């Protein structure tokens, strides 16, 4: 493992033991409270939300859509300039753009604004413009549409390659390495877009798939007649429709974040660096191992849950995946909260001068990174632990609701126990990683 944590100039102090203890206790108590505080039927699957016709009209106006598209395209184009013409050093904002603004930033953007990534996605914008200019339909490609059976598997593959780039790849903060990944990513998006139309991006863009998953935890959704509605995040989460590969996306997100946690510990790095170990191979195997652990434990839990409730396990793999989505959110919040504060600012500063020519295009070039937040170490620790615990609570409630959606109430409580067990495992594991590293 190459310890250079992509960017990540500053990492968080380990959680104080007292915070970990309180968070762990809260996790266990709340888990069992939800178990006994049973409700008779799946309540979130049917919640419609409050329709907002005026907001819908405003947000769906072509002018606003094109403005958002222009922002997405403009940022991507500016980053591309840095990639192609900027210096091969850490002062190149491409690294912060990819690893922080896009990869981490898509989470708060999706939580605040809902499924906006679809509109920000520069591939969709370019695709739409080209389709309009050539007067061909944008949603059908040379080979028709991407088959539904393919689900989001192309995005899973690209997501694995991205987390490998972010967490394992040697020289991942060199232009050559990041350019190689971006070239593959762009080629896959462009060729797939030509072959399958714009539906391809929903299946193959790992950032869009991840962003839309997080948007399910926002309060924004679409109700009848495509009206924008405001609803509880849990109700929104219940509208998540798992497709082939959704479990893979969640497992890669959880597993890779856990891997990043332990691979950053000094004891792991010391062990890797001692002697001539094939560091990249070990790290690759460890990361794939963590992802596999999540997949297998989740599958076992789903299987047991189905057996306990007398439901045929076939075709139920995605049933409980909703409950892991808030856990992903808790993990990444705890993990990346201060990174986005620190590197997010730095990237904004560097973004004024993408090719290191002394520009100050955004007027940010002479700003200083504000470090004030980092003085509040206790607050940061509580936010981190709180994010993990809140993610767990939402997950447990979602699991309870899902159990009721597939099984009669009398059996649903028993049915969710395997799921509850692995969720407690993930949560305590996440807390332990925040404490031990």
């Amino acid at each position: 493992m190459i310890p250079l944590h992509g960017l990540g100039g500053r990492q968080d102090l380990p959680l104080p033991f007292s915070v970990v203890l309180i968070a762990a206790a809260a996790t266990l108590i709340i888990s069992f409270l939800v178990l006994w505080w049973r409700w008779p039927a799946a309540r979130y699957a049917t919640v419609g939300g409050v329709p907002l016709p005026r907001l819908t009209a405003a947000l769906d106006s072509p002018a606003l859509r094109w403005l958002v598209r222009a922002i997405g395209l403009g940022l991507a184009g500016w980053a591309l300039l840095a990639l192609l013409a900027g210096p091969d050093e850490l002062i190149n904002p491409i690294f912060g753009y990819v690893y922080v603004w896009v990869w981490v930033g898509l989470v708060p953007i999706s939580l605040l604004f809902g499924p906006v990534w679809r509109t920000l996605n520069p591939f969709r914008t370019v695709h739409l413009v080209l389709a309009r200019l050539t007067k061909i339909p944008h949603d059908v490609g040379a080979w028709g549409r991407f088959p539904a059976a393919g689900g989001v598997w192309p995005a899973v593959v690209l997501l694995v390659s991205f987390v490998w780039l972010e967490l394992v790849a040697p020289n991942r903060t060199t232009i050559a390495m990041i350019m190689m990944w971006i070239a593959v990513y762009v080629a896959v998006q462009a060729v797939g877009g030509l072959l399958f139309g714009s539906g391809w991006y929903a299946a193959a863009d790992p950032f869009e798939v991840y962003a839309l998953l997080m948007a399910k935890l926002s309060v924004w959704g679409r109700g009848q007649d495509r009206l924008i509605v405001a609803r509880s995040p849990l109700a929104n989460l219940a509208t998540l429709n798992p497709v082939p590969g959704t479990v893979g996306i969640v497992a890669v997100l959880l597993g890779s974040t856990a891997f990043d946690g332990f691979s950053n510990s000094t004891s792991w790095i010391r062990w890797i660096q001692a002697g001539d170990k094939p560091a990249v191979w070990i790290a690759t195997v460890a990361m794939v191992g963590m992802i596999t652990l999540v997949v297998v434990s989740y599958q076992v839990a789903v299987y047991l849950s189905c057996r306990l409730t007398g439901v045929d396990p076939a075709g139920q793999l995605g049933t409980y995946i909703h409950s892991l989505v808030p856990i992903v959110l808790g993990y990444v919040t705890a993990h990346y909260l201060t990174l986005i504060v620190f590197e997010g600012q730095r990237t904004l500063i560097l973004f004024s001068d993408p090719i290191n020519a002394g520009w100050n295009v955004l007027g940010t070039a002479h700003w200083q990174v504000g470090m004030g937040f980092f003085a509040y170490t206790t607050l940061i620790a509580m936010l981190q632990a709180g994010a993990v615990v809140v993610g767990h609570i939402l997950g447990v409630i979602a699991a309870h609701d899902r159990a009721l959606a597939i099984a009669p109430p009398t059996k649903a409580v028993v049915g969710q126990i395997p799921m509850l067990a692995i969720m407690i495992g993930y949560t305590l594991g996440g807390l332990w990683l925040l404490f031990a590293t």
Partner: protein
Amino acid sequence: MCPAPPRRIPPSTGVALRRFSLPTAVAATAVAAVLLTGCQADSTAGSPTVPPPPATATTTAAATPDPAATPPSAPSAPSSPRPSAATARSKAASPAADATIAVTIADGKVRPNAEDVKVKQGQTVRVTIRSDVDESIHVHGYDKTAKASPGEPGEVTFTADVKGVFEIETHESAKLAAKLIVS
């Protein structure tokens, strides 16, 4: 975890230190420096190709002791704010640091190997580097860099004014020498 307190001041250190007319104070610094940095002091200093370093009490002390004198086991770094008030007087050009991390690169090996170094916010930290190849050491977050080439050690001193964990890493070989834990 930082090195164990040396059971004795290595003789070579003593010799080096006599150049300063405050042997006691400087010896205290040496102890502190070795305490903070210790086990990795893989003395390239004895090599004839190495010119006398731009001598400061701490760098000399940290770089000179022979490895046998500083057992590689380790308590954590002392967190007392100033190891010795007197050290500040020993060399005006290079004020004393509260913690010194002496990095050596020899035969492709980086020492220390992924050590935790704990300091309190506001303390000064010095990172020194000696290398048998062209190399530089980078303190992440603070963005401090010290360069070295064979026979030309380098160092950088800064105030650890931001809390957090910061990687101190070789630039060319991308090895983690230490994590600076500022709390």
